[in-house]
């Protein structure tokens, strides 16, 4: 058992799959000799060789398109977006080509497209994005978003083994911030499509994912201490397909739900989650389904502005307190 960071756990997961399965290869900008902008693939070229760790031109559409072609032929490519913000350059490939290939043409496209997401790092509008909503609307894609080191490892391994295309979102604010003891002997695989109960409670549920899992846990601690509230926190882990059963279970248990995400509000995932609860568990609700999200603006650079726009622990505390008293 060694303490590993979120980033190291992701790295281990990639490493183990490369080691296990010769069909797996990595492609992306500066992933080889440099080891990736955040060093996720450091040491991979040395171990697996240049042929399996490909430094590409700055061509996101080509990276994803070429990954798709190789996947049709039985390879298991893992494409890195240097920052997930640049996945927009491959939007056409992902939504039109990759996502429809199985349905249209019976073609398997087992690719993983991964990259650093998220704010709280003063990255400004183009190095802080959370792109899940842009892809969530596209049938044929899967989307995972680990919040813990264990799931960073378990989900990258499961994504590589999955027979469909998976967008793997990793939060750069978590990279070196969180640590967890992971067993060396056990193979860690996190099933795609299963949420995780991050904290048990009975008074109110927070449904969340990504970095805001940690903000929600912090809020739950504070609410327990200051208000004597037992807040349940559900970490979705997989966004598409969504674990409806886990969401309804927690709603039925606490009867109140607050949805928290870092992405902007309008058209964000919280709307879809709320609709599902409304359809499947309306009778269990003792209060309105409420949302804590980023404000509907591009993410600005100045710390004062970024802090204002993004959801903070204090926001979750206030919103939960209000809902608990409803």
């Amino acid at each position, binding site marked *: 058992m060694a303490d590993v960071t979120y980033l190291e756990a992701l790295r281990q997961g990639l490493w183990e799959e490369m080691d296990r399965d010769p069909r797996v290869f990595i492609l992306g*900008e*500066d992933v080889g*000799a*440099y080891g990736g*902008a955040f060093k996720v693939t450091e040491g991979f070229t040395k171990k697996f060789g240049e042929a399996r760790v490909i*430094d*590409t*031109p*700055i*061509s996101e*559409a080509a990276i994803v398109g070429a990954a798709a072609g190789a996947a049709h032929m039985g390879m298991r490519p893992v494409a890195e977006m*240097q*920052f997930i*913000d*640049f996945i*927009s*350059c491959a939007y056409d490939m992902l939504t039109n080509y990759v996502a429809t290939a199985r349905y249209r043409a019976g073609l398997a496209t087992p690719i993983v497209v991964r990259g650093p997401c998220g704010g709280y790092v*003063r*990255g*400004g*509008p*183009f*190095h802080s994005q959370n792109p899940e909503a842009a892809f969530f609307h596209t049938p044929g894609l899967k989307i995972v978003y680990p919040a813990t080191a264990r799931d960073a490892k378990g989900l990258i391994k499961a994504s590589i083994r999955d027979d469909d295309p998976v967008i793997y979102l990793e939060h750069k604010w978590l990279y070196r911030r969180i640590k967890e003891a992971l067993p060396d002997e056990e193979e860690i695989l996190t099933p795609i499509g299963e949420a995780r109960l991050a904290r048990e409670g009975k008074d109110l549920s927070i449904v969340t994912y990504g970095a805001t899992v940690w903000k929600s846990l912090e809020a739950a601690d504070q609410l327990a201490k200051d208000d004597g509230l037992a807040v349940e926190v559900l970490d979705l882990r997989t966004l598409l397909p969504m674990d409806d059963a886990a969401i309804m279970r927690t709603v039925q248990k606490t009867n109140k739900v607050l949805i928290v995400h870092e992405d902007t*509000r309008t058209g964000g995932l919280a709307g879809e989650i709320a609709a599902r609860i409304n359809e499947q568990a309306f009778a269990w609700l003792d209060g309105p389904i*409420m949302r*804590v*999200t980023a*404000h*509907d*603006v*591009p993410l*600005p*650079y*100045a*710390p*004062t*502005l*970024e*802090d*204002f*726009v993004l959801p903070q622990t204090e*926001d979750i505390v*206030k*919103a939960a*307190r*209000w809902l608990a008293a409803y």
Partner: protein
Amino acid sequence: MASRAASIPQSPPFPAGLTRDQLLEIYRYLRLTRTLEERLTALYRQSKVIGGLFRSLGQEGESVGSAYALARGPNPDILSPLIRNLGSMLVMGAQPLAILRQYMAKAEGPTRGRELNVHFNDLEKGYLGQISHLGDMVPVMAGIALSFKLRGEPRVGLVYVGDGATSTGTFHEGLNFAAVQRVPLVVIAEYNRWAYSTPPEKQFAVKDLAEKAKGYGIPAVTVDGNDVLAVYEVTKLAVERARRGHGVQFVEVKTYRRKGHAEHDDQHYVAKDELDWWAKENDPVDRYVKQLIQHEWAEQRELKAIDDRVKVEIDQATDACIDEPLPPGESALGGVYAGPAAAPRHWYRSL
């Protein structure tokens, strides 16, 4: 020595049709760029510059030389700079004070803390800020140039693109669009041998970026990017051709990125002797100084006086803004749309 300065005439034999004052002005912009970047580096180390810091050390010559070929003043030509074209922005009239405020995310900065580094514009002065997505400015600048063509204005657009960014789809679409439309656009392709850690061999299979332009029917030249005057001359020719209706012109500048991709990058993938060679033998500022002195276009003490004034200017600009406040959080909500309505403030913020 004072009498000697007075004897230097204000007419040729000066190079590239430039006057002596212009030669000294070019020197001032080179020095201003380098000194300002050194100041930004110091501020970055003090965590005053909050985002990453990207240096143009060794590339100041191509930035300043190319921008200097544009028309400035009322209804200027418009260029779109990249992170390593601070010098180009300074030539177009960007003020060190505005740049310092922008890097430090100050409320009084040109984007009021919304955007970082050189991502800001002043179309009156003649520059349009980039976004991070590489290549995107090529089609946008094609559109700026298209507007000049449609309105019959004798103006030119100029867009910078890195060797790495020539691999993007937007670069190719924008270039082809501009070529077909024959818009007055000059493309400066910066072959600085690195795209983050990626060398040219892994980026493209041609030798020179100029070959890419030829595939779109665009005339292209390659020039020594660390020879300020050569860059100026070649760009000037390209700008005038574009202005006269000859369509897109492509200039490849061969230069070298002497710092890491950004300040965090230790350049472990770069050969030390290569860096040393470019620093010692091919620094654009050193080379220009040597030219100025050898041809007796200027005197050392004049250059020294410029250096001193630049330092004072940057000290004053820094002092003027270093303690300024950041923008108030709430100001993040305005300006998403043309109307006065701001984005709604979330409900729990009023609890």
